[in-house]
């Protein structure tokens, strides 16, 4: 039932002059998903989140949160929803606690009583009485999470929450996201960090120039890629000749004594037998699942470099 979907968008477009920052996005996020919205700088991640949060109006198309459209229902569409775009911003001349008190009053619904516990959760309790103006980037980021949790969200929208954090801060933030997901909160997380998405998310959308180029579960995406292998053998030159004659083995190359090729499992098995029969010893046969990075480049960069090449040729 689409009414209960945490996020569903259809044909969502946001134009800024000639640029389509969001370009026909159909997105569905199910309950319990930790959904990675993955794209390079300028791909339109923040713009999508702004539309979802009701901060900007889409040029066309519609976005719904739990069946409510921010354009139609205004701030009611954010019932059960929390999050922020880009860095969370606070009143620098007020303390962290005062900022949360203000936001809790804006939320109503007993949010004030949760201030201590959310401060505790993000480990800001000791600094809560200091002015936010003196907070580090990491502290502000944590205060952003705390302010979101005041709303007891069922859906959390996070825009590159680890950007600008040091390795320990990143780890803490990811632990926190994992923990919140474990509590059953649906999360939409934008990121340009592949390992982060690989680490946290069960579903991804990969976007480029505002449009989705892939959407689905991560493992399916990984499975679509042909598996590559590295092979070291006692006689690489002859091994190359053997591999070239094998059906189902493609892209054979020999670089610095190491062979690379792609094949499915059955073909690899047959190739191994053929190498043995040719009295070539296999010293190493290493499968290489395409990293998300490679997939990502294939889906996004590959196309753009083709474009660029065409542009240069023409």
């Amino acid at each position, binding site marked *: 039932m689409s009414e209960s979907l945490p996020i569903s968008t259809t044909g969502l477009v946001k134009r800024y002059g000639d640029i389509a920052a969001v370009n026909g996005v159909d997105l569905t996020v199910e309950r319990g998903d930790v959904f990675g919205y993955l794209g390079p700088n300028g791909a339109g991640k*923040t*713009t999508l989140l*702004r539309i979802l*949060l*009701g*901060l*900007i*109006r889409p040029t066309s198309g519609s976005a719904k949160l739990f069946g409510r459209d921010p354009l139609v229902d*205004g*701030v009611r569409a*954010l*019932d059960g929803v*929390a*999050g*922020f*775009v*880009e*860095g*969370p*911003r*606070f*009143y*620098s*001349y*007020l303390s962290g606690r*005062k900022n949360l008190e*203000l*936001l809790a*009053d*804006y*939320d*109503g*619904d007993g949010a004030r009583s949760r201030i201590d516990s959310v401060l505790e959760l993000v480990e800001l309790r000791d600094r809560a009485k200091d002015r936010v103006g003196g907070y580090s980037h990491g502290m502000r980021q944590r205060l952003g999470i705390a*302010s979101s949790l005041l*709303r007891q969200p069922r859906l959390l929208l996070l825009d590159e929450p680890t950007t600008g954090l040091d390795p320990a801060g990143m780890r803490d933030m990811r632990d926190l996201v994992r923990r919140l997901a474990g509590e059953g909160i649906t999360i939409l997380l934008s990121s340009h960090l592949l390992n982060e998405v690989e680490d946290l998310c069960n579903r991804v959308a990969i976007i480029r120039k505002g449009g989705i180029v892939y959407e689905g579960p991560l493992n399916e995406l990984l499975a679509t890629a042909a598996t590559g292998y590295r092979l070291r053998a006692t006689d690489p030159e002859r091994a190359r000749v053997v591999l070239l004659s094998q059906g189902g083995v493609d892209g054979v190359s020999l670089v610095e004594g190491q062979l690379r090729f792609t094949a499915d499992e059955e073909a690899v098995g047959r190739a191994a037998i053929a190498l043995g029969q040719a009295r070539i010893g296999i010293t190493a046969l290493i499968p290489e699942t395409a990293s998300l990075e490679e997939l990502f480049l294939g889906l996004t960069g590959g196309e753009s470099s083709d474009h660029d090449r065409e542009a240069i040729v023409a």
Partner: protein
Amino acid sequence: MTAAVAKVYRWEIAKLLAQKRTYLGLVSAMAVPLIFVVVLVLQSGGPNDVPLGRYIRDTGLATPFVVLFFMSIWGFPLITALVAGDIVASESQNGTLKTILTRSRSRGEIFVGKILASITYTLVIVFAMGIVGAVAGSIAWGFHPLTSLSGTQVSAAHGVALLAGSLALYVLPLAGIAAFAVLLSTVTRNSAAAVVGALMWALLMQLLGVLPGTEAIRPYLLGTQFEAWHGFLRIPADWTPVIRALWVCALYIAAPLATAYVVFLRRDVAGD
């Protein structure tokens, strides 16, 4: 006022109380009558050309009326614009607008809260000036009956009532400037532009009022309404300028606010 708007309003006031520019304006509004009294105590002579100027040393009650005249050209408009021009723009510039717009208060509620806070501020600075002026003046020259603009004397107590009414009436054209500042604040998203723009608007209104050939529109200019309180100081009171100030100012307040409201409700809040 709904409970939701009351909450927003309370926080808008709290935010104003936590910002330096609020005090800059408030302290200026209170310093001007003080300086004025000190200078007149040290010097002979006086502001004989302005309404009630001749009686400045007769009673402390005359002080705030005379200061009202001097501050209407740019003093009060500037102090008002300083806060009203900042009230939306600073939140755009600091990015806090997106923070408060993604909670459970509607844009309308937030906007109304901000308007009420701006008008409260305007009210406070005018009355702060009035009170400081009357007290400082009375210390210097005593708390005596006031000579009205018709030349008759009214008791000091009556004078205080006239002062209160005049200050309240004076807030109206200032609120018109505040409304214009809020409009610029919402549209330009730039605090400095809004403050300067609103001040220019106030000066333009004053300028039109003194140029030759503008006699026909003069009663309906915003600047003219700063003198509407003169009606109170006639014995018997002349209600014509007072009534006119009420509806003329209502228009100068409503038109910019309505426009700003529509813009605020619809505008994109992106990083700017």
